[in-house]
């Protein structure tokens, strides 16, 4: 853990003279692909990105069998098209590629749910994106390392907490919906989610 601090910046030489590979390397590969897509509309990078993320987006769409297979494929298309259109706005210093894709998938799914339910709202999920982002550069690396750390810690969550967290994040269930489905008191769901988040993000209070 001692040299974890530098992991987000550049490979650092350790005592043996070998390079430590930053733990976020996989993420970095996809961040680089996104930058290529954004800067030079690189279709090769986009295809690689698609092959990695499309099956995950499809799994996301199908979690909790919330969407049919046809709608899941439709969601994959919409999300990947947004990836192509928005890649220019991706800032690799600020967010991990997986987090960035997650937010797009989450928004597209919300819009798709509303469309399928003929829910008439003047607000599209894109309207929720925030305008003010300039003054935030000083927290940047903190955020990206946070993503790497969350991934490392997820495997250590007790199953009851992991299950609820997945329900909330992957199925988009509110705490009360999760409580009803799991037949648990709302207070139990809330405290398990909160405990899980605290474990994943001890850095949250920092």
């Amino acid at each position, binding site marked *: 853990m001692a040299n974890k601090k530098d992991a987000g910046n550049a490979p650092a030489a350790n005592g043996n003279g070998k390079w430590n590979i930053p733990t976020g390397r996989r993420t970095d590969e996809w961040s680089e692909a996104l930058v290529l897509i954004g800067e030079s*509309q690189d*279709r090769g990078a*986009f*295809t690689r990105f*698609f092959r990695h993320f*499309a099956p*995950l*987006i499809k*799994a*996301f769409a199908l979690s909790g069998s919330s969407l049919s297979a046809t709608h*899941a*494929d439709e969601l*994959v*298309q919409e999300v*990947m*098209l947004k990836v*192509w*259109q928005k890649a220019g706005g991706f800032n690799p210093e*600020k*967010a*991990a590629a*997986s*987090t960035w*894709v*997650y937010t797009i998938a*989450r928004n597209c799914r919300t819009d798709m749910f*509303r469309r399928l339910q003929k*829910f*008439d*709202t*003047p*607000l599209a*999920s894109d*309207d*929720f994106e*925030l*305008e003010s982002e300039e003054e*935030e550069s000083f*927290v940047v690396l903190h*955020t990206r390392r*946070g*993503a790497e750390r*969350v*991934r490392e810690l*997820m495997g250590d969550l007790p199953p009851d907490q992991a299950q609820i*967290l*997945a329900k*909330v*994040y*992957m199925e988009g*269930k*509110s*705490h009360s*919906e999760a409580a009803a489905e799991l037949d648990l008191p709302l207070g139990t769901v809330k405290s398990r*989610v*909160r405990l899980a*988040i605290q474990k*994943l*993000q001890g850095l*949250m209070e920092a």
Partner: protein
Amino acid sequence: MAHHHPPMDLLIEYAAGALPVAQSACVAAHLSYCQHCRQLVEKLEDVGGAHLERLDPQPVGDSVLEAVMARLDDPEPLRYAPNEVSDTQLPGLLDRLINGNYADLVWKRVTQSLSISYLKTGDPNHEFALYRIAEGGRIPEHTHGGSEMTLVLRGGFADESGEYHQGDFLVREGWDKHTPVALEGEECICLAVLDAPLRFTRLRHRWLNPLLKLRAG
């Protein structure tokens, strides 16, 4: 800078895309005032990204890739452009809901110092409204049968538990009674999101309660 923030539960549900549209819009409007919560939400979204990476990949046919590749050169869909002359100084999302036209809002006068303007979010279970309280004006003591989110947009108010200024976010549940009073010097404008109607508790205001029936949608 805001001093009262949404509880963590609500931010988690926001980051997970699990909130109804009216509540989600209210949280988003708070975020536009509050860097602290913006950073927290980014961290909470990392949890979503990490989950995504750990899902069991599901096969996607080549036809889906081909369909996407064929659409890459399509023009991007038009997005709402903020009204250039908008001087509402409201969070962008609210500006969008009122089309940048604050002056055209229809206000319904409830008491001498309270007017309400209902906005349409399409949310079938929540009322989404702007409350305008005259400077120093008082909202009669009331309770809620459900939950109320309040975000201060302009000016400020005080109630039994504290003083609230621009960007501050409050959640009230159930039957807490409170009597908000706008601060002196400026009218106070708040966004309120309710899932049950406000009820005035004092005898001399109760006759107004039928006026306050929930206007969701």
